[in-house]
């Protein structure tokens, strides 16, 4: 039985790989979250503005050249500072991760994403949100 840790919470997922978006969406929906996804920064900006998520899972590297997950993080920090952002990175992205943490990201996950790691990281964030600490 999967614990519905996300009840009452909204999570936003940004990943340019649509299958990852879909599977991560199902993963969080099973845990009671209200889930929204986007596969480009443009859609991300408009969706975030509309839904004001509690948590955002942002892939740093996107297919587009114009923007990255860091730009979306910047926008979230400016417009919805209460949202906890988790950055999704590749193994060799240490500098970018450091930059994201400086910009106010709550945590990060390294690809390949695996369900137990996602669960552990998100559980930690949900506990903070429930306690009112971000």
């Amino acid at each position, binding site marked *: 039985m999967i614990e519905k840790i996300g009840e009452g919470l909204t999570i936003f997922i940004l990943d*340019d*790989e649509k*299958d*990852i978006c879909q*599977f*991560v969406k*199902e*993963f969080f929906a099973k845990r009671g979250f209200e889930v929204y996804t986007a596969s480009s920064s443009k859609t991300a900006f408009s969706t975030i503005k509309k839904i004001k998520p509690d948590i955002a899972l942002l892939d740093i*590297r996107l*297919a587009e050249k114009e923007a990255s997950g860091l730009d979306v993080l910047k926008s979230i920090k400016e417009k919805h500072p209460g949202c906890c952002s988790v950055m999704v990175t*590749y193994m060799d992205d240490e500098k970018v991760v450091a930059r994201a943490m400086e910009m106010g990201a709550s945590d990060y996950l390294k*690809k*390949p*994403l*695996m*369900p*137990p790691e996602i669960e552990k990281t998100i559980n930690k964030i949900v506990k903070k949100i429930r306690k009112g600490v971000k």
Partner: protein
Amino acid sequence: MANPLSDEAQVFEKIKKENIKVNPIVWHLIDHYIGNDVHAMQFIAGSHIVGDDPEPIPVDHGKKILHHCDEIRKFLIKLKEATREVRKD
């Protein structure tokens, strides 16, 4: 992983010794296309197999994995075509 090539050690030695580099444009393509497909497959399979309660991968999810394999194959063909040395004779 495929069986190692019989001369693999020499090939890697040659790459190291002759400082053979892959053009960053090519690396970027490999990283983007193969990287994304591999990650998608790992997450699809991992969402069933990894964790405390493993289960068989459903057929429709297996089909998605096959789709990503095929995308990698198509990308490699395209890359091979684009990087083929043009013969001058």
